[in-house]
């Protein structure tokens, strides 16, 4: 049960076993980690925004000021059960390297991102315009999202990197599943959640 937790975070929390060690990349105000702490899961959040760092400190969430684009050098291999990145992959300089780093320091990576294959995006592009949608509210010149991808693109990358997709959840903008998601996920899903595992040993 995840009462009071933002719906997107509640979905992630549902995937995390109690008592786990968690690293949350771009942890925001620390809501996920604060929630997990009540389930005996501890860890650290990485954050660069001073407002969010203050919010984490105030609620007793371990927050480490760090830029995820600089890598996770400070963290040892396999030191976390889960490494989480919620709605930030598309803002990274090199999303592929970030996921690889997540799978180096964690046994499991949980990533979420907005699906650029969603029909609203396609509609905007077919009209010759960069999309501004509920999931992508910024305009082209001020968006932090520099590496947007579709569900199909992401799965291609997983395959190429031999990352194992352990779980997948494709949802509309109200984070609901439904028959349309199963019919044509890359067309109807607005948000994508993936749980990834390292490549199987060669």
């Amino acid at each position, binding site marked *: 049960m995840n009462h009071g937790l933002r719906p997107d975070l509640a979905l992630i929390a549902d995937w995390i076993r109690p008592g786990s060690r968690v690293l949350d990349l771009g942890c925001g105000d620390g809501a996920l980690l604060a929630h997990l702490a009540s389930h005996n899961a501890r860890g*650290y959040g990485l954050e660069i925004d001073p407002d969010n*760092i203050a919010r984490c*400190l105030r609620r007793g969430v371990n*927050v480490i000021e*760090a830029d995820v684009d600089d890598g996770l050098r400070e963290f040892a291999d396999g*030191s976390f059960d889960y490494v989480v990145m919620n709605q930030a992959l598309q803002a990274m300089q090199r999303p592929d390297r970030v996921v690889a780093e997540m799978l180096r320091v964690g046994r499991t990576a949980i990533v979420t991102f907005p699906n650029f294959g969603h029909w609203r995006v396609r509609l905007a592009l077919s009209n010759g315009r960069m999309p501004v949608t509920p999931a992508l509210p910024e305009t082209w010149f001020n968006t932090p999202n520099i590496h947007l991808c579709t569900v199909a693109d992401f799965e291609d990358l997983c395959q190429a990197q031999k990352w194992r997709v352990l779980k997948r959840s494709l949802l509309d903008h109200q984070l609901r599943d439904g028959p349309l998601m199963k019919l044509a996920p890359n067309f109807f899903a607005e948000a994508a959640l993936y749980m990834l595992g390292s490549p199987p040993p060669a």
Partner: protein
Amino acid sequence: MNAKEDYPADSVGVVSPRCMVIDTPLALDCGRTLPRHELMVETYGSLNIARSNAVLVCHALSGDHHAAGYHAGDHKPGWWDSCIGPGKPVDTHRFFVVALNNLGGCKGSTGPNTLNPDTGKPWGPDFPLLTVRDWVRSQALLADALGISQWAVVMGGSLGGFQVMQWAIDFPARVRNALVIAAAPRLSAQNIAFNEIARQAILSDPEFHGGHFYERRTVPSRGLKLARMLGHITYLSDEAMRAKFGQELRTAAPSFNFDVEFEVESYLRHQGQSFVERFDANTYLLMTKALDYFDPARDFGGDLSAAFRQALAQFFVIAFEADWRFSPARSREIVKALVAAGREVSYASIDSQLGHDDFLMALPEYHRQLRAWLGRIAEQVQA
């Protein structure tokens, strides 16, 4: 005179130190034992009934027990007054704050400039060299004397931050939260090099007399002044010095001699001179050695995270972008070791300009993070 009219509302107002006598023998790392010692102490705020709201403030190289408020008649507040007071980050409405002059200091605590009971003369160079661990043991005896079994927070910047780490490692159950500001896991060769030049400046001053200058009624002021001038260069960033002094000549044109010609020279000479008037050369030597010796990993095969595995405290590590003496990279080494040890730790790197001295400033972002962290602790300890 009414103190409330004379001092800012967020000041602890007029304070006076007291001398605490520690009668328990203190075994030092150098092998010697002090049968008793005295510590000068100031406290601000009040200890709650549960005795859970005590904060220990550890001072840096040249600090002392006068961390906040004003001594009667003074116009200059304590050295960390920006941070400690009613409504300030270390809120004296909520916390009971203890500041001391460390053993070996020169502001009234037992040290080189106090009398050796065995000889009736000042200790001078016969005073034992100390380590950060010795200070922490001495401070633990002080905590016993004050009836504080666990500190809500042990905090300090620079050398003060070293003491915080050592406290958390040596007395895990007595430190609930550890605030390590502008510190490093140990000194770099460059840090030690600066200390060595400072020491040589003092040791080579003819007025030093091997440390027995009290009896000669002299002061090795040239050496101590040079040591402080050197130190000051390392406390400021290149950018801060440029902003503060530029390359401004004090006169219209160069005078082609070695008098003070540039503003920065004037500043350093002033800083050096005023330091000589308030500090002791033997204490300066002792403090720099304690800095050099500090290495909590040494007892754990050089593994800092093994050292931190002893600790139980929640840590908050803060660094300043403009600090090159103990740069953010050094603080991140501390954080890395704490994470590897599985300890609770937060880290903030504060955008700053001044340099190492930023930790004493009321930078808005710095104080906001301190308030956030300490505000939670105040609730945690029901302060």
